């Protein structure tokens, strides 16, 4: 309902508004356009058929051709009041326009709305949370990585001279020999490897061979070192939003780097 006009609920209404001039009940001579399954019909009501409700509305199929249909309306509603004729044609125009639009839309992709069900959604959410807890992702990932390390998928990048570590704790001389041997054997130049090697050597900067090896590896890997420093610094900037276990480990990692850089600068 607008302020000045009501809508008419009668399905035979021509304009859709409830007026004296456009009510099918109020006028004994009336015409409408209605469409069924994409075809338009002209419905007409005349006084002569007023006592026969079944035969009251006469139906005429209009042609699919727009102009021809307009002519048909005209010839059927000849001698009818201008108002009805005009409104009929207007309504027919509107109807054809929306039929065209429907046909166009069905060709394009149509969006299908699938209703979400609240209960199911809640159930899924809860199950997901429980699954997350059961999964223990961090542990699983760590285990997997360690397994891959053991199975040598990484090749010789990572060097963990555990034996060397043990000996270092016991005796320094015996340790230096074994470490120098270890170094000569594992002579690949990779960043991580260099970390551990130099950490071992921090105590033993006197030994000549080791110095030579150190300097050579230094020169080659100075740039990598700087890159790593930058990497560690960038990691430090992003430190705060990390999770707990990572946070514990980060200061540890930084200390390692610091130790390494200090001896190299000293030996320089």
């Amino acid at each position: 309902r607008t302020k000045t006009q009501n809508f008419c609920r009668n399905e035979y209404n021509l304009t859709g508004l409830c007026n004296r001039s456009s009510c099918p009940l109020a006028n004994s001579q009336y015409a409408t356009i209605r469409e069924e399954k994409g075809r338009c019909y002209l419905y007409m009501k005349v006084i002569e058929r007023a006592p026969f409700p079944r035969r009251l509305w006469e139906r005429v199929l209009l042609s699919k051709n727009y102009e021809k249909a307009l002519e048909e309306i005209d010839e059927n509603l000849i001698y009818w009041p201008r108002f009805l004729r005009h409104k009929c044609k207007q309504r027919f125009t509107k109807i054809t326009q929306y039929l065209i639009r429907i046909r166009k839309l069905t060709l394009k992709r149509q969006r299908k709305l699938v209703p979400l069900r609240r209960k199911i959604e809640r159930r899924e959410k809860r199950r997901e949370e429980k699954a997350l807890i059961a999964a223990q992702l961090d542990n699983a990932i760590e285990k997997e990585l360690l397994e891959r390390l053991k199975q040598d998928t990484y090749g010789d990048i990572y060097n963990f001279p555990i034996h060397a570590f043990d000996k270092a704790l016991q005796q320094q001389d015996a340790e230096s020999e074994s470490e120098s041997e270890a170094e000569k054997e594992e002579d690949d130049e990779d960043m991580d490897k260099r970390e551990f090697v130099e950490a071992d050597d921090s105590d033993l900067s006197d030994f000549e061979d080791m110095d030579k090896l150190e300097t050579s590896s230094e020169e080659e890997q100075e740039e990598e070192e700087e890159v790593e420093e930058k990497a560690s610094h960038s990691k430090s900037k992003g430190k705060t939003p990390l999770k707990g276990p990572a946070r514990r480990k980060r200061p540890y990692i930084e200390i390692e780097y610091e130790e390494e850089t200090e001896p190299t600068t000293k030996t320089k």
Partner: protein
Amino acid sequence: APPKAIPKTIENQRVYDETTVDPNDEEVAFDEATDEFAPYFNRQTVPKILITTSDRPRGRTVRFCEQLSSVIPNSHVYYRRGLALKRIIPQCIARDFTDLMVINEDRKIPNGLVLSHLPDGPTAHFRMSSVRLRKEIKPTEHAPEVILNNFTTRLGHSIGRMFASLFPHDPQFIGRQVATFHNQRDYIFFRFHRYIFKSEKKVGIQELGPRFTLKLMSLQKGTFDSKFGEYEWIHKRREMDTSRRKFHL
């Protein structure tokens, strides 16, 4: 005193699924050699991925797409302005893409993922939930390693291979990055970490990159086709959600 009992978990009580893959199963090995991922696993094709969204992506989805593309090497993000998927697919094939990912969004958050392997490969439709965007740290451009955990059944196996085919074959270990797809009770958790070995028995991981969980809704044999496609597996709520201990992936 009685010995300590093993606690019953859902994983322990899981209903035995007859399609569980046995590592030594010949049939499975033969299947895998001849299915759609064979060219990938035989190193004939290099993965190239197209990431796109549904119409009119909103802020979070856009950012998520960008982050995803930084996680997966050799991936491109293209916006879709009302283009029909059926028409995109032949274009993609012509331009040599191996995979297509469509991120569906709802109320400004991504909530669905359609992953299809392109030259005629299977299409998987997932429901995505709990999406967390990345905070500050960016992954480098090295190829990450891939970890696929817990994909036991035949179905899980094929989905796992689908994920594996997104990433290039040779992970660059220098990058020390790892992308993990962990399947637990039919939910696939995706995480992206950078690891560092502190000693032989200890590894530290640092989470970078987005994280999300996926639940498989359906798997189709051919490329994306909602009307005529042949579905290999659909999640039927009534039948499959009845038992708490039965999982399909």
